[in-house]
């Protein structure tokens, strides 16, 4: 068989019979070509969307729930209902220590302030933060650095501000790092400038100062505004949320069934819904692609079958001249495989081109809708392999049909 495939005569025969009717050969190939093109185009763009999505959220710890205090809705242990609940640092520590699956608990404080520099002023939201924030929600720093442990330990009066805040408080092209900004009457040194991303988790904050500085200046004591609880990847964030809230009720003398005492936003859960959509899209892509491929292969089989019928006489002549049934079958199967293979490779190449064009049109810049639209080479090879296998299987049908006709019937005059 290998020798047969390497012989020039074999290919001469195949090219002759395929070239005899170019239109038919091309139409046959279009089915498979289209199928693999769709598969690659769809898989590539699905991957591109996923990549874009991941890039958008890649800087965030998505397995996170935000929790803050509200007011109680049930009387409990002598406390009236309607009591204001506020979270404390010890709550955060307790959660970190006792709730299963928690990776980090990040306490945060926040308030609105007015900032002044020279004659420029603006009002902003300012948060007191730990360096950990930069890990959970990556800040894109254009200049300087984020708050570090030193700032926390020494309660330094330093501020990291957004580009927007910088634009409001500074002249164009003015150097900001090392300069001072007056925030509610106290001077803070600017240590970093960050770019505001497309997506913000939680309330927007334009200024970050060390958590301990915030505590001291605004006399917060142990109280915190809210906390971010991040779970380890393998743990269910909904369970963590429920456990944390239960623990919080326990610690703060709140009725165990009081659902309103703590407010929360489960980012992990929302994120899961979106990734679920992506998974669904990938499945759909595979389904559509493979179904189209199969349709294409059947088109090849169908057209070969018609071809065989058209070629009944030719096959009869060949057999009268001494072609064995095996030789006839072999030729038809090789024709089928050759057609699918060429169409498949063409489909892969054009599919790749489409992905390149897609990348060129939609994949440029940091806010691209489709990032690095691509298909892994192994997927391509497996698709091609399946295609060739289906091609040879489908080629067998017309091949058997061709040899089931007795040569005498094939040659009989019409």
């Amino acid at each position, binding site marked *: 068989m290998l020798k047969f495939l390497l012989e020039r005569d074999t290919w001469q025969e195949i090219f002759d019979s395929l070239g005899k009717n170019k239109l038919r050969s091309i139409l046959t190939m279009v089915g498979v070509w289209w199928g693999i093109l769709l598969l690659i185009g769809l898989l590539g763009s699905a991957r591109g969307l996923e990549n874009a999505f991941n890039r958008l959220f890649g800087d965030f710890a998505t397995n996170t729930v935000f929790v803050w205090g509200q007011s109680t809705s049930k009387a409990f242990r002598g406390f009236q209902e309607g009591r204001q609940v506020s979270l404390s640092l010890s709550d955060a520590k307790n959660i970190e220590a006792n709730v299963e699956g928690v990776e980090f608990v990040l306490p945060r404080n926040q308030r609105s302030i007015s900032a002044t520099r020279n004659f420029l002023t603006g009002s902003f939201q300012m948060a007191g933060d730990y360096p950990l924030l930069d890990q959970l929600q990556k800040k894109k720093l254009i200049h300087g650095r984020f708050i570090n442990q030193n700032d926390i330990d020494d309660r330094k009066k330093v501020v990291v501000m957004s580009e927007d805040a910088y634009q409001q408080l500074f002249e164009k092209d003015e150097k900001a790092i090392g300069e001072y900004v007056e925030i509610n009457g106290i001077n803070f040194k600017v240590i970093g400038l960050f770019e505001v991303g497309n997506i913000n988790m939680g309330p927007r904050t334009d200024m970050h100062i060390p958590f301990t500085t915030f505590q001291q200046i605004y006399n917060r004591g142990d109280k915190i505004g809210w906390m971010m609880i991040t779970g380890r990847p393998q743990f269910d964030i909904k369970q963590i949320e429920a456990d944390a809230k239960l623990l919080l009720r326990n610690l703060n003398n709140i009725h165990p069934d009081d659902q309103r005492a703590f407010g929360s936003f489960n980012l992990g859960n929302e994120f899961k819904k979106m990734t679920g959509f992506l998974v669904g899209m990938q499945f759909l892509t595979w389904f559509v692609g493979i179904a189209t491929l199969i349709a294409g292969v059947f088109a090849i089989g169908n057209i070969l079958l018609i071809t065989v019928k058209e070629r009944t006489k*030719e096959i009869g002549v060949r057999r009268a001249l*001494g072609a064995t049934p095996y*030789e006839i079958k072999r030729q038809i199967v090789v024709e089928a495989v050759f057609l699918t293979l060429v169409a498949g490779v063409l489909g892969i190449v054009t599919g790749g081109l489409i992905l390149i064009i897609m990348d060129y049109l939609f994949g440029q810049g940091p806010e691209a809708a489709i990032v690095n639209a691509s298909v892994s080479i192994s997927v391509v090879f497996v698709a091609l392999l399946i295609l060739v296998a289906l091609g040879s299987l489908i080629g067998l049908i017309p091949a058997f049909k061709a040899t089931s006709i007795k040569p005498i019937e094939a040659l009989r005059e019409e």
Partner: protein
Amino acid sequence: MLKINQLHKSYPIGDSSLHVLKGIDLSVDEGEMVAIMGSSGSGKSTLLNIIGMLDEADTGDYILDGLPIKNLTEKKAAVYRNKFLGFIFQSFNLINYKNAIENVALPLYYQGIKRKERIEKAKFHLEKVGLLDWADHLPKELSGGQKQRVAIARALAANPKLLLADEPTGALDTKTSHEIMAFIQSLNDEGKTILMVTHEEDIANMCKRIVRLRDGVIMEDKKVTQVRAEQYV
């Protein structure tokens, strides 16, 4: 060369069957040129197909060149056809997307002969039928007579023991028919055994022996004085 003994063949038609050949006895020696005649339905084509191993007899013996032809697998039949027999058809049956020389070389391809040798041999046979200049032409670019000559070259290419012709002149005008017959006669002169089916009396008379069939039996089997076709050309 060829020996047939009590050959029977019937075809099923619906529930009943049509008895086409009812005990044929025929022997042909090497170098003979035999015309098989008969009206349509007399079984002459069936007989030729059985001799050509395109069809198989129900009962009876068929010995070709000392080799009993019986219960052949398709594969074996194909090999025998290729080795022993050359076919000439009424409608030429050239492969329309192959040029003349490729058509002639086709039986050699199935013999597994190398391309270069194949083309050499095909050239030789094309020259023999006087069409070497037309080697690169497709069948549709050839006249009827030329097509039949290419078909004859193809039949000769594998150097068969027996040449089988099914109405070789049936699709040709009288003049071309005579040219083709003259060529077939010259092949016979060189020693080829030829068996042809025809219903034309003048063509049959250009053979050396006429076998007449009617209703599946041989009515008459006689040697005739060969009419040379050259005189009409």
